[in-house]
């Protein structure tokens, strides 16, 4: 009973909260000034700080001068001058190549690619040059000061060329880092870390969240470490792993999974009279989900995911990018290698379809919370629990009718563990 209560109490979450129970906080303490910012403003703040703190840093790309098509670079050119914040010709391979040259001379080059969908002309410079710059020179040269920012992901109406999630291509390239923030506060800290990291970083910003996500963001200069995943919601029954905008979808799926089951309501009305307290305890026994934000996809924090899956026994990975060859495959393979004997179900991937990102069909293409909820990983523990719950309730009510009430709860309900 105590263990049931303990587990239950931890799961109490205010419904509709954006980020669930934050178990691990890596950001400012309460006395620091915070401001409610959306994602593009948080990114903007990070860029202001980056340019302020390093006089040899530059921000450039297409249209960044007036503030950028997503307003991430607002005010930078006015404040730091056109020598350091400037528009470039429309040429991604030139933008990244120029950035590599600047970085190789010890500067910080924060380069913007207008949409991740257009990053491919720069792929040669990123893979063959930036990623190998240090290694091939025997560490005589490096372009660690290079950070490439690009908006990625679905936006509701973007179609083929304004919605792509190309992170998987880059995760296959030793020598660069791939970072994807989930929210404004995370974005500011992760971007500052990426800019200051002595390795070239590709930083994908979920464009869906540029305006949609609003969060209290500390105003000061802070960094969030790379290659450290965060458990943003603790749970025991299943581990969910994601990044970027997809985490808000997955959080909804977690909330749904943890909710009251209609089936149990029927039990309550038809079967027996039970104490409200007792029944509520049973009713609120949904699926306890542990949600992990990977943050850095390359190099990724295998240890945190491994520890979580060893605890829960189940894994569900979700990303917008097409499922085949997506980064979920790498996570799945690694976890299978490391946690095979602890897994109670196959690893599930709830991802985009293997098609170009469609326009009118976007709602069908996307890995929605319903797709997550109905995936085998999330629904199979549910079925199992439902079975044992019914058994447990049946036993319980028989005892209750025959004799004095016995507290069986923990015995039967914990049966499925």
């Amino acid at each position, binding site marked *: 009973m105590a263990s049931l209560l303990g587990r239950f109490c931890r799961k109490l979450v205010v419904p509709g909260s954006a980020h669930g129970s934050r178990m691990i906080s890596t950001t400012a303490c309460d006395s620091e000034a915070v401001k409610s910012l959306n994602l593009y403003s948080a990114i903007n703040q990070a860029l202001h700080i980056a340019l302020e703190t390093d006089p040899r840093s530059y921000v450039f790309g297409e249209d960044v001068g007036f503030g950028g098509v997503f307003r991430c670079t607002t005010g930078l050119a006015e404040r730091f001058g056109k020598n350091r914040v400037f528009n470039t010709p429309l040429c991604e391979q030139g933008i990244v190549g120029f950035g590599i040259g*600047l970085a190789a001379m010890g500067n910080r080059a924060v380069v913007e690619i207008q949409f991740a969908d257009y990053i491919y002309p720069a792929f040669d410079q990123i893979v063959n040059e930036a990623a190998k710059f*240090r290694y091939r020179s025997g560490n*005589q040269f490096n372009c660690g000061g290079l950070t490439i920012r690009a908006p990625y992901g679905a936006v509701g109406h973007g179609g083929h060329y304004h919605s792509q999630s190309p992170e998987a291509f880059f995760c296959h390239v030793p020598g660069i880092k791939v970072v994807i923030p989930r929210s404004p506060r995370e974005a500011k800290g992760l971007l500052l870390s990426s800019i200051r990291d002595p*390795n070239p970083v590709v930083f994908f910003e979920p464009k869906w969240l540029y305006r949609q996500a609003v969060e209290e963001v500390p105003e000061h200069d802070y960094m969030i470490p790379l290659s450290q995943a965060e458990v943003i919601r603790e749970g025991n029954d299943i581990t969910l792993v994601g990044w970027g905008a997809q985490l808000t979808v997955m959080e909804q799926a977690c909330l749904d999974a943890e909710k009251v089951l209609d089936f149990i309501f029927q039990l309550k009305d038809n079967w027996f009279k039970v104490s409200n307290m007792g029944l509520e305890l049973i009713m609120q026994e949904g699926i306890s989900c542990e949600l992990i934000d990977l943050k850095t996809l390359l190099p990724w924090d*295998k240890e945190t995911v491994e520890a979580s899956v060893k605890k829960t026994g189940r894994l569900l990975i979700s990303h917008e990018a097409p499922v085949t060859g997506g980064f979920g495959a790498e996570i799945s393979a690694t976890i299978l290698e490391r946690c095979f004997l602890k897994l109670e179900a196959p690893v599930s991937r709830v991802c985009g379809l293997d098609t170009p990102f469609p326009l009118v069909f976007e709602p069908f293409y996307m890995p929605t919370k319903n797709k997550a909820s109905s995936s085998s990983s999330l629904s199979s523990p549910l079925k199992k629990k439902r079975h044992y719950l019914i058994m447990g309730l049946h036993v319980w009510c028989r005892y209750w009718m025959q004799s004095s009430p016995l507290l069986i709860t923990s015995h039967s309900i914990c049966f499925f563990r």
Partner: protein
Amino acid sequence: MAIWFSRSRNIVFSLRHNLNLSGILIKRDYSPRPAFTNSQLSSKSVCLDSFTSLRHESTAVEKQLDLVQQSDEEDPQELNFPGGKVGYTSEMKFIPESSSLRVPCYRVLDEDGRIISNSDYIPVSEKLAVRMYEHMATLQVMDHIFYEAQRQGRISFFITAVGEEAINIASAAALSPDDVVLPQYREPGVLLWRGFTLQEFANQCFGNKADRGKGRQMPVHYGSNRHNFFTVSSPIATQLPQAAGVGYSLKMEKKNACAVTFIGDGGTSEGDFHAGLNFAAVMEAPVVFICRNNGWAISTHISEQFRSDGIVVKGQAYGIRSIRVDGNDALAVYSAVRSAREMAVKEQRPVLIEAMTYRVGHHSTSDDSTKYRAADEIQYWKMSRNPVNRFRKWVEDNGWWSEEDESKIRSNARKQILQAIQAAEKWDKPPLTELFSDVYDVKPKNLEEQELGLKELVEKQPQDYPPGFQI
């Protein structure tokens, strides 16, 4: 934005009849006197007020040095468009795909090594000339011996610069040691000039533990931060936009230095050529682009590479000052590169040099060029158009070089190179841990695990792995 119109004086005559675009002010100068770099360029800028977006001080409008004459049919009125005022004409005329006369090639020495009369060139002292010649000879010996070493199976691969010794050495001699060089792969002479030792060359080719590159790349992929020579990478032309960034960094630091980058004729077809030149021009970066037009990109002749008059004409398309130079004439290359470098640094602008030459050797040791070109064509260039011989004649004629010096330099170079190769061959390879380092600044967990795993495997089954690697 200043719009530059410049015409070579030799083209003017035909232009006057063929072109009738008002607003393009044609320079008329029929004087036979050879013009040095600055005076060869004459232009009138059509400057604009509100459309100017210079991020630094405006580049000074160059004054026109010669008379400008407009054609009779031109309408003096102008149209206002983004990008500036442009004159208009009611006559529909297409700019021809090429001029009737090709851009001439700047040269100073004739084939017999004698200075052409009235040449404009920067004088070279005896000390400098002898040093240049010694390096050209050393480069020749180095190329020959390393090539043979590959044929003997001692190194896996090699690329020679045979036929391009003048470009290699004379350009290096014209630069300052602070100028940052971003090579393609056929410019080892630049590194040699700057002080990279023969032993260091050999170490890289053998990939031994003394290789500064730590044995990670194929032979000839040299790099040296001490010599401001960026590490060679195989992809073609990727260094060009990087050079623009390097130049911009030097500009921002107000250094008395520029970026210098090399490319072959084939490389100018790459997108990065366009990106590099355009960025350098827009950013007003001090970059000298040196294109070694040696006629061949592996087996692809330049007639299959582009339809323009070589590469020099492309400079103007980017707003870049350009010159075509005889790449086998060491003095001409020296003067052109030295002037270009001064322009780049003083005026903070890019400059393009097309050095005409011939690739006497095969593309690499993986190539047999007799399969796609005539053996006597190769022989002709090797014997009659040899840049080393040509320069030696000039140095000898000045009394600065003798037969004795010649045999001495060649035998010394040969001895040193052979010693270097023998030593490099014997030394161990880099330790196995260097396979995993420098991927990032700090080894991440996945690489630590992989290194441990590999070490265990190698210790268990050493017979499956080559010797000479310390674990």
